[in-house]
């Protein structure tokens, strides 16, 4: 227990003493919030209720958003076909059709599920449930070496790791703050969602929701393990206790929910218009040039992208991946959404259905699960990398994050492939 906690405890003891002397307690009927909290904060039901609501949120995001994604898919596929059929210059037609509409359109297909995740989180936030979730998770968080207040930054990490890491500034204890920052990149941000949606849809039809939530749970479990390891070997001490006030429950309004979701979705849209657009054009360039050698993008094996992919291939080949997966993971360092955008361009397809058919040749359910896991764990994106350096202030700790994430990604993916092969043999 550090100085701040000793002071807080002493302050609350004194407050209790003064209140005891100056206030006469009368029995008061329970408020509505107290009534609900009896169940929601229950020792045994609290965590199952939290997990049930989170699962409902992801089912809502994945299943209900599907027709909107289909509409975007139809639009970009038609636009790409139109561009390739009507632009006379071959290179320009390929750039606009495959690079811009193909690459960018393929990422924008995942805008609706991301927006729906934010709508669900905004509803939970506006009802006043999220602080309760922090309280419910406090015991579990403390057990794994994190602080109760770590829960909110960790939850924000489901949206984007950049604001989540910045939200750690609210934590007073420096050690708790650093540990939370160091494990935050393991929380599955919305940029990884397109990768899960693509591979879960292609290889686990009917169980997409379950597979996707298992990725989120895997991230939470690994963050818990790493927090324990980092505290034990690099910092020491115990997490400080959680003190927080619960707001009353309230009915969220449509306007506040949509405004909150829109503000968060705008981050993705801005990224799509800048980093993802540039990324799509770079990947297009790497996959079609040298123009003559690739025959205008027809023979990918001769492209610059293949050169990069083959350099990475020896490392990832034992996991069952080829050079295309290597290029996708390489570009994923810029922004995680680029993993799917890159695969779309490399396989030369615009629609979601076509990419599912294409990746079915190079992946199977085991390698698909391994790729999803690597995307979850390996290197944080460029923006997160910058924020990590700023918030931690030490290259040593940033280097430690990169080292443990790369190693962990490889080990977990190897375990998945190993178990998968063992089951196949059985």
């Amino acid at each position, binding site marked *: 227990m550090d100085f701040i906690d000793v002071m807080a405890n002493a302050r609350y003891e004194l407050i209790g003493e003064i209140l005891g002397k100056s206030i006469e307690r009368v029995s008061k009927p329970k*408020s*509505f919030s107290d*009534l*609900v909290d*009896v*169940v*929601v904060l*229950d020792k045994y*039901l609290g965590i*199952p*209720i939290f*997990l*049930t*609501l989170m*699962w*409902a949120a992801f*089912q*809502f995001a994945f*299943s*209900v*958003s*599907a*027709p909107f994604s*289909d*509409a975007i898919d*139809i639009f970009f596929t038609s636009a790409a076909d139109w561009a390739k059929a009507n632009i006379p210059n071959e290179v320009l037609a390929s750039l606009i059709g495959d690079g811009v509409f193909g690459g960018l359109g393929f990422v924008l297909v995942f805008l609706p599920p991301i927006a729906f995740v934010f709508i669900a989180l905004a509803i939970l936030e506006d009802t006043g449930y999220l602080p309760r979730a922090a309280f419910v998770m406090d015991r579990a968080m403390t057990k794994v070496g994190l602080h109760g207040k770590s829960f909110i930054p960790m939850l924000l990490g489901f949206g984007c790791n950049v604001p989540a890491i910045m939200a750690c500034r609210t934590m007073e204890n420096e050690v708790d703050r650093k540990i939370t920052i160091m494990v935050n990149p393991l929380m599955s941000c919305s940029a990884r969602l397109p990768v899960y949606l693509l591979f879960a849809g292609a290889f686990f039809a*009917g169980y997409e*929701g*379950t597979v996707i*939530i298992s990725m989120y749970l895997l991230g939470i479990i690994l963050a818990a393990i790493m927090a324990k390891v980092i505290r034990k070997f690099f910092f020491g001490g115990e997490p400080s206790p959680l003190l927080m006030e619960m707001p009353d429950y309230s009915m969220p309004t449509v306007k506040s929910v949509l405004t909150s979701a829109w503000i968060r979705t705008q981050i993705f849209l801005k990224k799509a218009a800048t980093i993802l657009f540039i990324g799509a054009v770079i990947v297009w360039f790497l996959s079609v040039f040298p123009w003559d050698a690739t025959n205008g993008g027809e023979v990918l094996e001769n492209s610059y992208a293949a050169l990069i992919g083959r350099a990475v291939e020896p490392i990832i080949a034992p996991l069952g991946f080829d050079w295309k997966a290597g290029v996708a993971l390489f570009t994923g360092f810029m922004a995680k959404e680029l993993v799917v955008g890159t695969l779309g361009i490399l396989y030369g397809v615009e629609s979601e259905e076509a990419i599912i058919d294409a990746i079915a040749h190079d992946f199977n359910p085991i390698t698909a699960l391994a790729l999803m896991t690597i995307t979850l764990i390996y290197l944080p994106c460029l923006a997160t990398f910058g924020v990590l350096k700023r918030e931690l202030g030490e290259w040593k700790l940033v280097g430690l994050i990169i080292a443990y994430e790369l190693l962990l990604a490889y080990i977990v993916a190897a375990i998945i492939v190993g178990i998968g092969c063992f089951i196949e043999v059985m």
Partner: protein
Amino acid sequence: MKAYMIVIFLATFGIGSAEIANGIGAEIAFIPADIVGGMAMVVISAIFLRGVVSEESKACYYVGSVILAVFGVLYILVMLAESASCIMAGEEVTISVRPETLTLLLAFPGVLAMKKEISIL
């Protein structure tokens, strides 16, 4: 209220267990194979069971009914989304009704009673 909670407990537990059973290979008619969805229904049933055996029955009745209603509405939205996707793809619309949409009816009395309680408070 407790008798009604026992009815909801039996319905939700039955549906949840059947969904889990189908998920691991059983073939119970009209029930989808969905292990996690089934576990969610079992959690809801546990809230009602807790209300039956404890003194906090009103709180469990309200919270359980709200979560049950959330799931009912969720699966209605999923049903509508699937129909919309079929229409856009030019396929024949097939509606698969999940049992959770029917349990929405069981949640109504609890949700309405809770609404009344909020207006009194």
